């Protein structure tokens, strides 16, 4: 038995929290919410594959659905395995209270809430937002407060604007740039986009820097999306046959 055997047991990695903030307002009914429900079941597998390739990182998931209210599906950030056990399909109904969702995200991105129990600290988080409509509440004030949050400032952010009614300008303001907003015209593609962005954000956020910021790398990846060809999720063993 070696002198340092006991010192390897406590080794682990820093944690990246991947926040999902998805619209489940009434207008999401049908294919859109169905694709979201479908995609979220794939997320644990993608994250696990990314984490296996990054020895220095754990990835955990925090997910909320917003409509008239904000509902956190995860009571705390969960491992991929815990997340799949916790997930339940959601129904579309209600308004698009994006402001309330941003306010709630601000509360959760705090050492007193979702970013407080890891003594080794965290990697910069990922934030993935999806909406198909115009906010129905005061989102400006919430965003103003959220932008003061250091976790949010350091986060890699991507937003999905689903359909013609989605307000891309609002989503661009949240992400800091229109380059981080992905327009999805075909609801049938929502699942595939969510998988692609989950892989890109989590992989970029947990591997060594290449000189560009994680946000720049993800934005470059988003530019490479060609709507006429299937998205290739560069993670082994992902079943893309549903495209």
């Amino acid at each position, binding site marked *: 038995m070696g002198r*340092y055997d006991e*010192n390897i047991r406590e080794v*682990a990695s820093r944690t990246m929290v991947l926040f999902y903030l998805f619209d489940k307002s009434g207008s999401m009914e049908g294919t859109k919410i169905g694709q979201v429900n479908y995609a979220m079941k794939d997320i644990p597998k993608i994250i696990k594959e990314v984490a296996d390739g990054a020895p*220095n990182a754990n990835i955990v998931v925090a997910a909320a659905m917003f409509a008239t209210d904000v509902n956190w599906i995860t009571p705390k950030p969960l491992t991929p395995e815990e997340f799949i056990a916790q997930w339940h399909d959601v129904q579309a109904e209600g308004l698009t209270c994006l402001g309330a969702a941003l306010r709630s995200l601000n509360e959760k991105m705090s050492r007193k809430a979702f970013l407080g129990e890891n003594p*080794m600290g965290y990697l*910069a988080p990922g934030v993935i937002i999806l909406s198909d409509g115009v906010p129905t509440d005061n989102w400006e004030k919430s965003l103003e407060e959220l932008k003061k949050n250091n976790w949010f400032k350091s986060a890699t952010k991507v937003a999905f604007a689903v359909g013609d009614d989605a307000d891309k300008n609002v989503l661009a303001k949240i992400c800091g740039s229109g380059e981080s907003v992905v327009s999805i015209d075909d609801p049938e593609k929502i699942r595939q986009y969510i998988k692609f962005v989950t892989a890109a954000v989590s992989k970029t956020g947990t591997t*060594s820097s290449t000189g560009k910021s994680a946000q720049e790398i993800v934005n470059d990846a988003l530019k490479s999306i060609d709507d006429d060809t299937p998205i290739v999720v560069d993670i082994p063993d992902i079943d893309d046959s549903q495209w």
Partner: protein
Amino acid sequence: MRNWAVDTISIQGYAHKSAGKECQDHSVSWQNKYYDAAIVCDGHGGDKYFRSDAGAYLACEAGKKIISAFMEHFWKDKGFRIKFFSSEKVRDEMFEQLIKAIIQEWNQSVAADFNAWPIEADPRFTALTDAEKTDLQRENSKAYGSTFIAAILCEGFYLILKLGDGNACILRDQTVEFAEKRSETLRDTQLQFNLTTSLCSSMADREFRYAWVKYPLNSVKGIILTTDGVINSYTSETGYLRFIHNIFSSYIGSDIKSAHEELENFLHTLSEKGSGDDLSVAVICRRK
């Protein structure tokens, strides 16, 4: 008769091995009859800092040269020593001069390296974006960015100099503690969200932290310095401190060669299972 041991190890991280990148950590230790000293430096990752391995090496060399000159002056010049111990204000001025001299020496070494091998001729420069190229042409030293931690231990006092992330731990009696525990001046609130202060910063002299600590004879048994990849490998500070304690035990209780080999072997495993980063450990300890 002083019976202290000094040693350093720097290993290429698991992630760097996998990516075919060089080790960007460097470390150095030395001793004489008056004092023991060690330095660890961590060159920044990222394509823009493509000469940070050289930057870390030059930082170790600059630190050793300037600290050696300072300590020689300290021991040979009684007037200097009297002045040194006369007041905290005078000491602070001396340490600030010491820090400025290290930064200046590093910048001169970097400039010499740059002049011998201009970055524009480096293929890693041509691979950068236009904005990054412009930035580096304005401030060449950024390509060499590195952190810096040094420890100088004498009978009765020690000095820690620190710029950027990484850790200094003290073995006091039988307990290992972070140097910051008794030296608030070493704390740096800028070190979060993967950010670090650096020798290549134009404000490096103001960003340096230092602590000079007097201790009752025999109460301090050693100092260990580590680059940030070591603590980032652990789930808790307690786990990290247990590892540091084990290193002290090994160096105090074994022969130096065996202790060195055992630690070096373990650091490769630690990087693979932990942070994936390059790792450096510098040890100064009182031998039995």
